[in-house]
Structure formats: C-alpha cells, structure tokens
C-alpha cells in the first residue's frame, strides 16, 4: 500500500477500478471512434489495406456534403428530430395517466391488462407493419411524419405504461394520503405530488422512447417516402447493393449518435436514479 503525505492513501484497488471503468468506456466507444476516423477518409482511403489509422483531419468533405445547408442528410436529420420528440411527448402524455390509474386505482382486471400491455410489445414488428401501414393509408396519414409518430407511439406505449406503473407504485402512499387529507383531489395528487416524485423514472422512459424513435428503421422505411424520411432510412440507403461507401456512412452514423450522447450525458443522473426506483422495489 502506497502512502502519500499525511493520512491520504491511494488504494491500488481503487486505481484498478478506475482503470476498469476507463476500459469499459474504451470498449464501448472504440468502434465509434473508428467510425469518426473513417468519416474523414476518401473512398480509396477507407478501403485501404492495411487500414489507414490517421486520416487527414482537414478533409471535411464527407461531413460538408451531408450536413451543410442543402446537404442531403439535413432533412432526414430534422425529420428524425421532429418524430423522436413528438413520439416522446405523445407517449408520455398518454402513458402517465394510464400508469397512474393502474398503480392507484382499483381498475378491474389489472393483472390481465398489465400482461397484455407487455405482450403487445413482443409482436414481431415485421408482421405488425403491414396492417399498421394499411391503416395509415386509410387514414390518409401515409408518408407523413404524424403517421410515423403514431406507429412509434404504438410500439412504445405498452412498455412505457408498464414501467411507469412500477415507478408510480413506488412512490410512498403516505405522501399521497397526506395530500388528500389536505384537500387535494385524487387526480390532483397525480399532478402535484406523484409526478414530481417519480420524475426520475419519467425521465428514463422519455429518454428511451426518444432513442427508440431516433433509431428505428423498418417502420420508417415503410411509412415514409423521400421528403419525410428519417435519418435511419437515409443511412440504410448507403447499403446500396453495388458499392457501399463506408466513409459517408460513417459520417452520418456518427452524427446520428451525437444527440443521443448529449442527452445521455446531461440526463445521466436521472437515468440511474430512475432505473433504481423501479428496479429494486417494483411490482
């Protein structure tokens, strides 16, 4: 055990843990770093053998082509932002009351509803796409961002309600009862008391809903066309059957990850706190 001046001692075990945490971060980000490096290469450089380690960092061409105003990736990027944010909002607006109802009210046949809610998420997306897209065509919502949001809400709602029910169940009932005694109505409790306390869990659901919509591909391909396509659809276009341009794919792929990274960085404490609310003591 090393000894520094005074009574401070650096335990080797803590240093080891720190390095292990660093290692985890490295393993997770290594491919993305590689993608970032690749995004600065030309086609020829990207396909070089052996792989080129350090590209020319002044070669912003791939990025400019894609993201400068008028670049091709700009519209899909904006569409993705709109769709993801809308999905998150709609899902939360619908799921929160429903989860509260399941947690606090004696809704009949509760366990059945709950299980049905979970199982609807398990439907293989591939099979659900055709009826959903047909329904959208009937409603004249095909090829609209609204239509896509509806589909995404469908897929996230069940999961959101399930998890939120658990979070709400964990808010100590005594606080709510105290509020009731003070004259707050039953519904008012949801708004004034439970909601703030379950905030962490809500943030978790919101974030994961957002991320699901940001990344989803198959439904987006089916439901959207040129002007309404989202970023994942645009990315999938790079896998053209004849010559895939990985350097451009890398640029757009890295760009796709950035918003997610930012959100996670700032919302981190909510995420872990939120998960802990539901996880340990949930139903």
């Amino acid at each position: 055990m090393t000894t520094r001046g005074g009574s401070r001692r650096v335990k080797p075990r803590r240093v080891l843990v720190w390095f292990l945490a660093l290692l985890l971060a490295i393993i997770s980000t290594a491919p993305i770093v590689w993608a970032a490096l690749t995004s600065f290469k030309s086609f020829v450089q990207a396909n070089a053998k052996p792989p080129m380690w350090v590209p020319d960092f002044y070669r912003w061409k791939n990025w400019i082509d894609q993201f400068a105003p008028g670049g091709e990736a700009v519209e899909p990027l904006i569409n993705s932002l709109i769709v993801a944010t809308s999905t998150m909002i709609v899902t939360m607006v619908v799921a929160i009351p429903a989860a509260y109802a399941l947690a606090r009210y004696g809704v009949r046949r509760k366990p059945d509803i709950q299980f049905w809610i979970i199982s609807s998420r398990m439907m293989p997306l591939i099979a659900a796409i055709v009826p959903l897209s047909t329904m959208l065509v009937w409603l004249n919502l095909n090829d609209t961002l609204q239509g896509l949001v509806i589909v995404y809400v469908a897929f996230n709602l069940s999961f959101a309600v399930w998890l939120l029910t658990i979070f709400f169940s964990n808010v100590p009932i005594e606080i709510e009862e105290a509020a009731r005694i003070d004259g707050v109505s039953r519904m008012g409790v949801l708004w004034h008391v439970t909601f703030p306390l379950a905030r962490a869990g809500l943030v978790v659901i919101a974030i994961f809903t957002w991320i699901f919509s940001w990344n989803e591909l198959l439904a987006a391909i089916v439901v959207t066309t040129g002007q309404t396509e989202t970023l994942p659809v645009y990315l999938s276009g790079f896998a053209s059957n004849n010559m895939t341009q990985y350097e451009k794919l890398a640029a757009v792929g890295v760009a796709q990850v950035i918003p997610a990274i930012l959100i996670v960085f700032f919302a981190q404490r909510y995420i872990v706190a939120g998960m802990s609310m539901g996880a340990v003591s949930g139903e």
Partner: protein
Amino acid sequence: MRSSRFMPAAVLGLASVMLATTGGIATAQSGGWDAFEAGLKDKYAGKTLRLITINDPFVPAMIETNKLFTELTGAEVVVDGYGYDAVYEKEQLACQQQSNAYDVIVLDVPWTQAFDGCTEYLNARVEAGDPEVIAYDDYFKVMQEAVEWGGNIVGLPFAPYFVLQHYNTSYFDTLGLKPATNFAEWVANAEAANKSEALPDVYGTITNNQAGSAVGQAFFEFIYNVEGGKPFASMYPGCAPDCYADMTPLFSSPQGIATVELMKSILPFQPEGALNYAWTERQNYFNTGLIAFNNQWNVTTPSADDPEFSTIVGNVGTAPFPHDSADLVTQVGGWSMAINKFAVDPEMSWDYLQWFTSPQVNVEFAKLGGFPARESTLANEELNAQYPWYTTLKEVIPTAFADCRPRNNESFNIINTLGTYISKAVSGEMTTEEAMKAADLEIGTMLKEAGYNVTLP
C-alpha cells in the same frame, strides 16, 4: 432520398462541360423529335413528378438529365433513392395499397411479373407514339423481352446491366495472364493471381458468396455456361415463349452440381472474408487493386476509371464472361421505368417515360454517367470514346438471355432459397448433392403449389 450520394465527380464535371458546349439535346435530323419536344414545352409548369429508384451509381446522372426535363416542361422531378430490398418493398406495398405517392417507378428484370398489374400497360401508347421518339426496336432485343409479361409491356428499359469480366490490365500483364474464355482458364487465372510471387499482396478474385440473394444470383450467372446446364426444365436460351412451361428444378442435375462445385473451387483464391462477400466487396476491392479480376454488372465499371473511387484508373479491362458451353449466355439485369397504375397524372408520367428512354435522351444520360439501353446509344461514337468497355458490351449483349433469372412472382423466393442452400454447400455445412437435392425439393414443392407444372422426385 435525393441521391447525389454517389458523385462520380469527374464524370459530373465532364458532363457539365458537355452540356454547355452542345447546348442541350442534339436534334440532328428528326422532325418527329422536334415536334415532340415542342409539344412538351412548358406543358407541366408548376407540377411535380415523383420518381422512386434504386440507389445505383447512375442516380446522379439521372438527376442531371432530369434537369433537362425541367427546363423543357417546367415540371420539377423529385427522385427518391433506396437500397435494393427497400425499393422493392416500397414499390410493392405502394401497389398493394393502391398508392399514388409515386408517378414513375423502376423495375429490375426479375421483377416483371411481380409488378404486372401495378403499372400501366404500355402497348397502346407504344403503338400510338412517334416512332422517332419510341423507336421500340432500337431497345436491346433482350430488354424488349425482359419488360414484357403475357404480351403486355410493363415498362421501358433505361439502364440495363450485363455481367462482364473485369480485369486489372497491369496485373495481368505482370503475370502474363489473359482474360479467361472458359472456366478452366478462369480458375487457373485466379490461382495464378492469388498471392503470387510477383504480386504477393494481390488476391485472385471475388465472387458473390454471401448467403441468400447474393450467391443465388451468382448461380444463374454460371448455370447456362456449363454445358447443357439449365435451372429449370423449360428455362434455357431460346425457350420463349414457353420458358415457364415446366418448372421442374434441375439444381441437382450434373450441371447444377458442377456449377456449385465450380463456385467452391474458386473460393481458395479469394481473400479470407470470401464467404461473406457480395456485390460491394466484389467491386470495392477490385477498384483498390486488391484483386486481379472479378465478374460484375457493368453498373460499377465506370467507377473503376474514376480517380475518386479507384486506384487502378487506366488499368481496367473488360471481357465477356467465360463459358464452357458452346455459346456464351450473359446474365442481364438492370432497370426499366414504368408508369404507376395509380398515378395522379399518367399523361405526365408517360411523357417523362418516353422522353427519358428516347434515343436522344438515352445518349445524354449515358454521357452524364448513365448506361445505354438502345442499339443506337451503343453505337454512338462519342460514347464509345468515353467508355472503352462498350466494345465488350457489344460482344455480350446479343448473348444475353432475358429469363436467365426467373422473372415470375416466385423469383425472390427461388433465388433466396437456392442461395441459402448453395451457401450451405459452399461453406461446407452440407455436401453439394444434399444441398442441391434439398433445394430441388423445396423449390419444386413451392412452385408446384403455386400452380406450375413440376415433376417432383
């Protein structure tokens, strides 16, 4: 997706210069063409034509060509590009949902029956059109056959592809090789070029080996070129009009098995990732000089001469596909455009179609980086100077066979299933015999249930 994702910059630069100097479309002789053009002037001002297409390298050329249409008629042309599977799905779903989202759709050669009923039949329009504009017999004969189903013309060809041998002339010179004319030479070339002493970092070749549609498609490149080989009892060059009369699968015939064995035999002379390689690797690694030759659709041939996409510019040679059979059979593929049956303005779609595929515009399209769909385009002197590989095209197009891959509804199913079994054989999961017999049985049963005349073992 508007797709200039595939900018062959050199070609576009050349194209703009050419457009500037020629000032638009050459109107050498035709009264008919002039009248047609005059009739189109500002006809669709303020309207939009929506086109869905595959994301292939011709898309930038198509977008440039479309600008001429916009100048002429005032209609804005919006091009949405997707990957292969995605464009098939979207077009099929649009058809099933009777959507009018797109005015013009594109069809690959094997998709003909699948889109029969989704597009407007063009027979009447072709009859009634101006012969100088339509020039139907000017299309490659094989493409005329390919766009027809049951006597109906489903679309008009605009970017057909043919499978050619591409080889690196400098490597071949160093190694003293010549492009193969039969399969023995083909494998021998691969062996000689693979990690040779003179070129230790170069591999022989890459073929489509990835499971599913990649290796399935490759099978059809070879089968007719093995003496007496045919995939189905009634499917062989010259079978028209009864190509689907007897769909008994012959994958486990001696020729079928020989084909798969051939595909196995060339595996050792490919880079280590061969079992998972498909179209992308086949071309990418040729362009960067990693392999000495490949067999590939001519769609990516121009890229090998583009400094942005290739390190072997100037060293690209093309040749016909090798064959052991008496006559070469070249695989044909590539794209036609068609009028969406549910389009809002079929007249506008038709005008676009006949304009884009006309002899005059096909030449422009080819100059800008597209492909010839007509004999007259193929004969054009300027284009021949620009693309030396037209010589090979001229050799192989007469040998192309429209039904070399089935063009019926079951086409995807056949190719995918066959491809899975071939991949099992090639990767060693099953023996070739077992795999091909299983393929015969499964595909045969499927076809029989679909109503074809099939004799099961």
